[in-house]
C-alpha cells in the first residue's frame, strides 16, 4: 500500500513539473559548482576591487579594515609613484607592437604550411613546443642571459638611418628585436588555430576563383582572410591576454609587490590593478572593433531578405494575374449569359 502511494506521489509531482523543468534543474546541478565558484572568486572580487581601490585597507587584529579615501590611491598610482606610469606605457607599447607581429607571423606560417605540404606535423610540433615549456621564470632566465637575442640590430645600416630620423621608433624596433624569439613563442597557439581554420575552408571556393581568373594574392585577400577573420579575432584576444601574464609585462610584478607591501596597503594595489585592467579592456575592445565580422551584419541577411522580397513580389503578381483571369472569365461568363 505504502509503496503504491509513494509511486503515485512521484508521478504526480513529475506531472506538475513537466519533463523540461526537471531536466533544467539537473542542468543546474552540473553547473552549480562553477556558478558558485564564479560568483565567490571572480564576480564578487571583480566588483569588490573597485571599492577597495577607493579606500585604504589595513590589516588589524580584527581583520581587514577599509576606510573610504576617495581617489587618493589613483592619484598616488598615476602621479606620485614614478615607476607605475612608465611600466604601464611599456606594457601598452609591448602589446601594440608584439600582438600584430605575433598574429602576422602565425598567419603567414599557417598559410605556408597549409595545402600540399609534407612535414606539416613536424613543424607544427616545433612551433607548438613553447606553449608547453614557457613559464614566467623560464622566460626571465632566458632573457637575463641574452639567450633570446638573435644578432644585434644596432649594427645594421638601415637601423642607423632609422635611429637618426626617429629615436623613439628605433627604441621600439630594438625592443622588438631584443626579445624576438620570445615574442615568436607566443604564436604557438595562433598557428595551430589558423592552420585548423584554413584546412576547413572548402577548396572549391579557390577553384571557382581561379577559374574566374583571380591571382593567388587576390584569393588570399578576398577569400581566405575574410573566412578566417573570426579566428584572427580569437587569436588576437588570446594573445593580448597571454602577453599580459608574462614578465614582458612589468605591471603584474608591481601589483604583486604592492599586495605584500604593508605600508601602502591593498588599496593602492587595487588601484594599480584597476587602471591596468581598464587598459587591457580598451585594447580588447579595439581589437574587437577592428576584427569583428562585418560581413554578417549586412551581406548575408540582405541577400536572404532581397530574395524573400522578390519572391513575395512574384507571388503577388501571380495572385493578381489569377484574380484578373478569374475576373475576366466571370465577365465573359456574364456576357455569355446575357446573350
Amino acid at each position: 500500500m505504502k509503496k503504491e502511494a509513494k509511486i503515485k506521489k512521484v508521478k504526480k509531482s513529475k506531472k506538475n513539473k513537466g519533463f523540461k523543468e526537471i531536466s533544467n534543474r539537473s542542468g543546474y546541478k552540473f553547473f552549480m559548482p562553477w556558478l558558485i565558484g564564479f560568483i565567490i572568486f571572480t564576480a564578487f572580487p571583480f566588483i569588490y576591487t573597485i571599492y577597495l581601490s577607493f579606500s585604504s585597507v589595513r590589516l588589524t587584529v580584527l581583520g581587514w579594515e577599509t576606510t573610504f579615501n576617495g581617489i587618493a590611491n589613483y592619484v598616488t598610482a598615476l602621479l606620485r609613484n614614478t615607476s607605475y606610469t612608465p611600466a604601464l606605457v611599456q606594457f601598452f607599447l609591448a602589446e601594440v607592437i608584439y600582438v600584430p607581429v605575433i598574429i602576422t607571423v602565425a598567419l603567414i606560417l599557417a598559410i605556408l604550411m597549409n595545402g600540399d605540404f609534407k612535414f606539416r606535423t613536424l613543424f607544427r610540433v616545433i612551433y607548438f613546443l613553447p606553449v608547453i615549456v614557457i613559464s614566467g621564470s623560464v622566460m626571465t632566465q632566458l632573457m637575463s642571459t641574452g639567450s633570446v637575442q638573435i644578432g644585434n640590430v644596432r649594427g645594421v645600416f638601415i637601423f642607423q638611418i632609422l635611429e637618426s630620423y626617429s629615436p623613439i621608433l628605433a627604441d621600439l624596433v630594438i625592443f622588438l628585436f631584443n626579445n624576438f624569439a620570445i615574442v615568436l613563442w607566443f604564436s604557438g597557439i595562433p598557428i595551430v588555430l589558423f592552420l585548423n581554420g584554413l584546412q576547413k575552408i572548402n577548396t572549391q571556393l579557390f577553384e571557382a576563383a581561379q577559374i574566374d581568373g583571380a591571382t593567388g594574392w587576390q584569393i588570399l585577400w578576398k577569400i581566405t582572410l575574410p573566412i578566417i577573420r573570426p579566428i584572427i579575432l580569437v587569436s588576437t584576444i588570446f594573445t593580448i591576454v597571454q602577453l599580459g601574464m608574462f614578465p614582458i609585462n612589468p605591471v603584474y610584478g608591481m601589483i604583486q609587490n604592492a599586495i605584500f607591501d604593508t605600508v601602502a596597503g591593498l588599496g593602492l594595489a587595487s588601484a594599480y590593478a584597476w587602471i591596468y585592467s581598464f587598459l587591457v579592456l580598451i585594447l580588447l575592445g579595439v581589437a574587437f572593433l577592428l576584427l569583428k565580422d562585418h560581413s554578417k551584419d549586412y551581406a548575408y541577411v540582405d541577400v536572404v531578405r532581397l530574395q524573400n522580397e522578390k519572391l513575395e513580389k512574384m507571388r503577388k503578381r501571380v495572385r493578381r494575374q489569377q484574380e484578373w483571369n478569374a475576373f475576366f472569365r466571370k465577365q465573359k461568363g456574364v456576357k455569355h449569359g446575357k446573350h
Partner: protein
Amino acid sequence: MESIKRFIPILKKKLLGHNISDGLIYKTAVYVLLIAIAYVFLYPLFRMVSYSFMSTKDIINPEIDWLPIHPTLLNLKIAWEVMSMPWTLLNSMWFAGTLALAQTLISALTGYAFARYEFKFKNFWFMMVLLSFVIPIPVVLIPRWMMFSSAQNILQFKIIGTVIPQLLLAIAGQGVYSAILILIFYNFFKMIPVVLDEAAKIDGASNFQVFYHIILKMSVPTIITVFLFAFVWNYNETYVTGTFVRQALKLMPGQLGLFDSIFSDKVAVIPGAPGGVFRLSESYKMAATMITMAPMMIMYFFVQKQFVEGIEKTGITGE
C-alpha cells in the same frame, strides 16, 4: 642546341610549375623560410642547452659560439643541488597533478551542463565563462588573497603557503585557463549524440549515471587531453602560485625564479662548486632552466599529438 631548347620548357614547368605554388622554386622557398623560423623558435633552447654544458673557460672564450670545447656536467650538478632536486620536482608533480585533477573534473561537469541542458540565462553564463578568461588576474587576485588570509586568521589553520587556496579555486572552476578546458569539453560533449543519453534514461539511469557511465567513459581521450593541458599550465604557473604559496613550498618555476639568491646562499656547501671569488655564470642559470623545462619537454615528446589536437578541440575555429 635542339635538345636544350626542348629541355627549357620542361625545366620551366618543373621550377615554376603549372601554378606558382606547385613549382620547385616556391616549395624550396617555403621550406627555407619555415626552417629559418623554426630555428628562431628553437634558438633560445639551443642556446640554453649549449650554455649548460659549457665550462667557465668556454664561456669566457670568445671563439666558442655553440659547441663547448671542454664540456662539463658540473653546471647541471650545481643547478641540481641549488634547486634541491629531486624533491622540488616531486613537489611540483603532486602540486600540479592535484590541481589538474580538480580542474579536469569541474570543467567536465560545467562543459556537460552547457552541452546538454537548457537553463535560464544559459547564453549569459556562457559569456561569463569566456569573460573569466579575459579578466586580468590581478583584479580578482587581491580580494581572493584577502579572503584566504582572513580565513587563515579565523580558522587558525595554515592556508597561505599551501596548496589549499589554489585547490579551492580549481574546484570552483576558476583555476588557470579553466575557460579553455571547459570549451574543450563543451565541444566534445556536443558531438556525442543525445540519443545515447535518452536510451540510458529510458532504461532508468539517473542524470549522474548517464554522465558517468555514458559520457565520461566515452570521452577518455578528451579527459586525458584536458588533464595534460591543466597539468602543464599549473606546473608553469608562477603568478597566482607566487602570491598564495610564495616560498613556503619548493616548486620548480619558483625555485628557478629565486635561483640567483639561493645560489649565493648555498654555493659554499655544494661540492665541486668554484670556491673563492667567482661570478654567477650564465651556464648555471641555463642548466637550471633546462632542468625546469625537462619534465615538460619529455612529456611533450610522448604526447604531442594530444596537445596540438587539444587546442583544435576548443572549437573556436568554427565547425
